[in-house]
Structure formats: structure tokens, C-alpha cells
């Protein structure tokens, strides 16, 4: 019993059936994708070789990664300020902000995307107003380009960025910051040496969450990009539904999956991932 307990935590036994279910439900499709990527249209590495041969594919992957990185930087950056404000304002304001944040999860991505067009499109509210008061002669191209995609994606992602940060900021004892001031640290010293390190796990969690979710964006780039910003998710969907190049689609899906796994693995070299996902350092 002693050795048994030491090798397998009893908690695992409780979730074992669930684990089996999850593994079969997820691993099955993943295996299917891998299989397709090596067999369709013909067996071999042909689909992967395309990455080297076709500028188009590389460009799509690069566009996707670039947009996701920028989205992540801005979402997490803005999310950090928002979470900070939420933690440090009074309870009533905090409740308002939390409600707004949660409500935004309920608004469909399609509605949000088209709202941006109304607001920032060529004939949108902002351009209309600026033109009316004579500040600009030509509408500013906020939408239907990469900037539009970024605005839409960042806006969608901010709530996702805020939540992990909020959790990690709320768990900081306010007296720790008082202590830092008391010991003579300036505001920026306290932030850089105490606050930032203490919120780092939340920051990493938030970054991972936003980046990974961004990779799967489809509607926003398709609509706000005006057709010129092609990201992997949309491309995969076209290959599946329109061009019937399932092998290419599977290869790209596998690439994304292993890209993300590689990223997690790299991060695990630098920090304990369990702290990021809510575990303790001890």
C-alpha cells in the first residue's frame, strides 16, 4: 500500500475513467489528422514537403504567427492594465468591470466583428465623424486590412487575457507591496522587482491562452481582413471544404498542434508549468 501510494496519487484513480474518455476523444481525431497528413492524396511526406516548396503556405503560416504574436502582445498588455485597475479599484467599480468583462464573453464573435465595421469602416461612425468635422478628407483604412484584423482579434482576446491575470493579481497580499514601499523602493522598483515577478505565472498563462486561441481565429480575419489577410484556420477550412486537399489541411493542423506543443516544451525548460496552470511553487 505504501509503495503503491507513493507511485500513484490516489486522485488519479478517481479521474481515471474520465481521463480514458478524454484521451480517446482527443487522441482519436489527432491520430486521424496525423494519418491523413501522411497519406492524402498519396502516402509519404509530400504534404510536408510542400512547406518547403510553396511560398504561399509559408507566407500563410508566417502571417498567422505574426498576427497572433501582435494580438498576444497587445491583448496581454492591455489585459494587464485592466486587471490591475480591477484589483485596485473599489468593490463597486470592480463589480461593474467584471460584469462588463463577462458580458463580452456572451456576445458572438460575428456580432463583434460587424460592430467594428460599423464603428471603424470606411463609412463607419468614426470616419464619418472625422470627415464631417473636416479632420480628414479620405476615410482612414482601419478595417478590411491587417490592422482591422488586429483590432478585432485584440478586442476579442482581451477578456481572455484579463482572467488569468486577475486571478494572479488578486492572490497577492497587498501588504507585500506596502512592505516594498516601506523598504524604500520607488513605484517602478516595486513593480519590476515584486509585482511583475509575482504576477509572472498569470502573465505566462494569459500569454499562452491568448496565443493558442488566436491561432484558431477564422471569422475575424476573414471578414475584417477584406479577404487579403489569410490565416491558417481559414486556409485549412478552405482546403477541407472547397479544394478537397485534406492532406494539406491535416498537415497544417498537425503543424499548428506540434508548434504549440513545442512552445509549451520550450517554456517548461524555463519555468515550472504547473505554477502557470495554478499549481504552487512548493
Amino acid at each position, binding site marked *: 500500500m505504501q509503495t503503491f501510494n507513493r507511485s500513484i496519487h490516489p486522485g488519479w484513480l478517481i479521474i481515471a475513467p474520465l481521463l480514458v474518455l478524454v484521451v480517446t476523444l482527443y487522441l482519436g481525431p489527432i491520430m486521424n489528422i496525423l494519418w491523413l497528413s501522411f497519406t492524402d492524396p498519396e502516402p509519404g511526406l509530400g504534404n510536408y514537403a510542400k512547406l518547403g516548396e510553396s*511560398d*504561399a503556405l509559408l*507566407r*500563410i503560416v508566417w*502571417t498567422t504567427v505574426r498576427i497572433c504574436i501582435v494580438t498576444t502582445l497587445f491583448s496581454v498588455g492591455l489585459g494587464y492594465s485592466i486587471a490591475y485597475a480591477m484589483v485596485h479599484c473599489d468593490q463597486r467599480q470592480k463589480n461593474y468591470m467584471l460584469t462588463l468583462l463577462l458580458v463580452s464573453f456572451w456576445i458572438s464573435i460575428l456580432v463583434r466583428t*460587424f460592430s467594428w*465595421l460599423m464603428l471603424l*469602416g*470606411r*463609412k463607419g461612425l468614426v470616419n464619418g465623424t472625422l470627415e464631417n468635422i473636416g479632420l480628414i478628407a479620405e476615410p482612414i483604412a482601419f478595417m*478590411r486590412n491587417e490592422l482591422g484584423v488586429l483590432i478585432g482579434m485584440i478586442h476579442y482576446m482581451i477578456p481572455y487575457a484579463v482572467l488569468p491575470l486577475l486571478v494572479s493579481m488578486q492572490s497577492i497580499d497587498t501588504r507585500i507591496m506596502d512592505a516594498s514601499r516601506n523598504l524604500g523602493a520607488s513605484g517602478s522598483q516595486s513593480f519590476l522587482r515584486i509585482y511583475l515577478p509575482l504576477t509572472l505565472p498569470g502573465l505566462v498563462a494569459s500569454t499562452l491562452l491568448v496565443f493558442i486561441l488566436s491561432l484558431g481565429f477564422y471569422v475575424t480575419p*476573414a*471578414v475584417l481582413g*477584406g*479577404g*487579403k*489577410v*489569410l490565416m491558417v484556420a481559414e*486556409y485549412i477550412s*478552405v*482546403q*477541407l*471544404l*472547397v*479544394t*478537397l*486537399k*485534406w492532406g494539406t489541411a491535416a498537415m497544417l493542423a498537425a503543424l499548428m498542434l506540434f508548434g504549440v506543443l513545442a512552445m509549451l516544451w520550450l517554456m517548461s525548460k524555463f519555468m515550472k508549468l504547473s505554477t502557470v496552470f495554478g499549481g504552487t511553487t512548493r
Partner: protein
Amino acid sequence: MHDKQFMKETLQDSAKAYQEGRLDRRTFLALCGASGIALTAVMAGDAEAAADHVVMWNWGGQSEECHSSAIGDAFTANTGKGLKFDTSGPLEGKIKEMVDSGNVTADVADGDLFNAVSLGPTGHLEPIDYSVVSRDKTLPGYALEFGVSIILYGYAFVYDTKAYGDNPPQNWADFFDTAKFPGMRSLYKWANGSLEAALMADGVAGDALYPLDMDRALTKIQSIKEDSLYWGSGSEAHSMVVNGEVSMGMIWQNRGRNIENDTDGRYKLVNNQAMAMPGAYIVPKGNPAGSSVMQFIATAQEVPAQLALLDCLGMTPSNPEAFGQIPEDQQDYAITSAKNIDKIVYNDPEWWGKNGGDAVNAFLDAIS
């Protein structure tokens, strides 16, 4: 949905195994119990349950109602069979997936004729039974082994009368001429129609388009890329125009009337050099209703159905018999009406069926 289908399929397989004695009774009953599906339903199978109706796979929205009134009612009167719908949109990939999975739930798909060329030879479609369906009740070349064109839609463009009122654009050459006609353009994102328009703008004759010169077409497309937006759905094309994002917009020609109405006539449809696209009925391999679907297709070819589809959906008849009967107030918006038929060009489903996938990817590469 998917899970349920999978479960039922598994059970039908095991029902067969049980009947053939490969599976013992207890295991079979346990399987049924576990999935919560009534034993009788499984044993009866799908075919009999479906035999009293055909399932049409279309794009939802208006089309459900229109297909019912235009075709379904007559079909029921003729055969006593009903019409049901799957409105999830029969994209080529979905048809392939349905047939590959062995769980075919639709009898006829409201697709494109080029789908018949790409999916037919790979064994995903039933051949059209031309002893029931008529080759003569569609345009020549649009009655193929695995699909027959029932309606025509098309690619035309609308322009902003305020921007170009005095000297309006007349053709695709004007559409691509941003020097003479400054302003934003919108084009279809999945290449179809856009490539042909580009070639015509570049001087290729409408009857000499195929095989498409891809390089030439893409060069032309890229020449106005800075001034172009690309849409992926009819509603997106509509909103780009109606919201004033573009001064000239390629649209699905059947939406022309709506756009003119929604902009109070500010935007006007140009049918010159419009590209007629054969919309086709195709039958997924192993469809549940079997051969009775051919009668349904034949019904849709009849003149009353053709005119009703035009009236209800704005889809133009492809049965030449109906061309002369297109009512006066539809003439401007029907691509094969007497007013338009001499100005239009015809899409080649053979070329698209064989080269469509590569063309779409090349197009996407060029615009992104």
C-alpha cells in the same frame, strides 16, 4: 449530430452482424441499450424509414421555403412522396465527408455543376438517370453524367451611380480600370468568376476563356489588389456594397435587385459580360431514397418549377423552354432573359471540376 449518426451506423452494422450470426444476441442488445436507440428503429434500418420522402441538402434561409413551394409540392402531387431538408450547405468537402463516412443522409444536393465533375469520377456521386431526367431541359453541355444544371446564377457587378453617374462602367474592362473609375472594388474570394472577369477585362473573348490562363488572370487581379476587397459569402458582398465600402462590387447576379432596392437605386446592376454559373442537382452515392430522387430532379426541370424558383429565389431557369416565359419585371435580373442572354458568357464546369482546387489556392495566394 455527428455522434448520433456514428452510433446509429455502428448499430446498423452490428444489426447486420447479428442477423448473419456473427454477433450474439446479448451483446447486440447491450449495444442498443447503451446507445439509447430503440431496437426496432435499428432493425428497420434507414432505407425504409426514408422511402416516403427525399432529403434535399441546400443552403437554408429562403431556399427551404422556395424549394418546397416550387418543387416539393409538385413532386408530392406526382409521386406521393414528401420533401425534407438539410440546410447545412453542401460544400464539396462536406459531400465527400458524408459519402466517405458511409452515412449518407441526403438524396439531392443543391450544388454546382463543377462538383459533378470533381466528385463524380471519385465515386462520391450517383449518376443521373437520363431516362427520367431530361437532357433537353437544360442548356447544352450542362447535363453531365453526375449532375444536371437546374438553375443558373451568375457573377455580375453593381456600381455607384453617384460616383460614375454620367459615364457609367459598361464591362469588366471598366471594372478593372481604376484610373478611369477610381474607387474600391469587391471580388469573390474563392476565384470563381473573378478569374474570368479578369481575363475578359484583359481582352480575352467571352467564348474563348477556357482553359483559363491563370497567370494572365492573376496578374490582372493583382493589378487592382490595392483597391480591392474580397468577399466570401453573398451577405458579405451585399454589405460591402450597401455600407458604401466599395464603388463597384462583383456580386451574385441574383442579388442585384435586392442591392438596388436597399440602396434606393444608388447602386445599379450591370449584366453585360455577366458569367452564368450552372447550379446543379447532384446525388450523393448511396443516397437513402434511392432512385426516386430522379423524379424529384425531373420535376425541378419543368417550366412551372423553373419560373417559381426565379420568382422566389431569383435563380434563373436553365431550361431553355422557360426563357421565353420570364415575366417582364424579372427580365433585368434574370441572366437568361431575352434582355440579357446575348450579353452573357458561360462557365465551364469541366475546367472548374478538374482545376478548381488549384485555381482557388493560386487565387488566395495572389490576393493575400
